[in-house]
């Protein structure tokens, strides 16, 4: 039943599939960003307490959520890489990590710029902020570890192990606003109850979350293709690809 999956363990097939999917993710990113940001910045009403500063939410929350989603995906890939020794899963980790790191950076920076007018401080050492900062360091650690080995088999294994170790941070980030006293507000959407947000504010947020997911997908696919090309650069199919490309340009 699952046999159709097998050919995709071959790097060449995965490269082609990623190339076919990429444009769709790019289009989805552009559409959702234009609609979501237009709606969120121009049409959503100002918050009755926070005024217009709440509009930072349309990048802060999607970036933070997708930073964690990216990590979860990497963790699944790391498990697959370690258990079934699938090289493509390792390349997947290397492809996603920089996107996750950038999203975490965005969550931290926009959080600081939102914290200053609302809390009176750019930064406080509370549970949510500190655990998010640790996530950034874990991301940077995975990227650095993967690049530290010139032997990519070893690099992939080391990065996979570190990725699995770092999973412990995900529940800490999510529940940090529950377990500890914090300035950061609690969950607004990701809870069992109804979202505590007006629909005209919530809709652009949901669109932006989809937008960041699409961006994550697009750049991950792009970098995944890079990883495959780099590691397969001596294979005939890559040579054929480059020769074809050069021929087309002449």
């Amino acid at each position, binding site marked *: 039943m699952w046999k159709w999956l097998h050919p995709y363990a071959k790097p060449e097939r995965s490269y082609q599939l990623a190339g076919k999917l990429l444009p769709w993710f790019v289009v989805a990113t552009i559409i959702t960003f234009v609609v979501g940001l237009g709606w969120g910045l*121009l*049409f959503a009403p100002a918050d009755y307490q926070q005024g217009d500063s709440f*509009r*930072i939410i349309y990048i802060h929350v999607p970036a933070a959520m997708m930073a964690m989603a990216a990590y979860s995906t990497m963790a699944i890939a790391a498990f697959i890489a370690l258990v079934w020794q699938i090289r493509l899963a390792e390349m997947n980790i290397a492809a996603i990590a920089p996107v996750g790191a950038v999203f975490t950076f*965005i969550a931290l920076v926009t959080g600081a*710029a939102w914290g200053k007018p609302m809390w009176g401080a750019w930064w406080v050492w509370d549970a949510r902020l500190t655990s998010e900062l640790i996530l950034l360091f874990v991301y940077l650690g995975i990227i650095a570890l993967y690049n530290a080995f010139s032997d990519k088999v070893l690099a992939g294994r080391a990065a996979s192990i570190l990725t699995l170790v770092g999973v412990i941070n995900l529940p800490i980030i999510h529940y940090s606003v529950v377990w500890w006293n914090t300035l950061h507000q609690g969950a607004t959407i990701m809870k069992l109850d109804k979202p505590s947000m007006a629909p005209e504010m919530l809709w652009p947020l949901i669109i932006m979350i989809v937008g960041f997911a699409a961006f994550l997908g697009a750049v991950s696919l792009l970098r995944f293709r890079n990883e495959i090309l780099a590691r397969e650069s001596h294979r005939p199919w*890559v040579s054929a690809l*480059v020769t074809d*490309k050069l021929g087309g340009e002449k």
Partner: protein
Amino acid sequence: MAFESIGDFIAMGGYGFYVWLSYGLTFLALIILVVNSVAKKNKILKNVAQRLSREQRIKKAQNMEGTL
């Protein structure tokens, strides 16, 4: 529309600096990431193309030696 004029929109009810700082840094980070990813691909392809042309030159030189 939540704003009366473009000036109002830029002012963001007095929070303009914080809002535009957030959006500015976000887009800067996203653009750098995309540019880096595309540049990486071009670099890999260029390296492979260089290797292929080098291999071709070596082959050619070896064939020439044979004819001399």
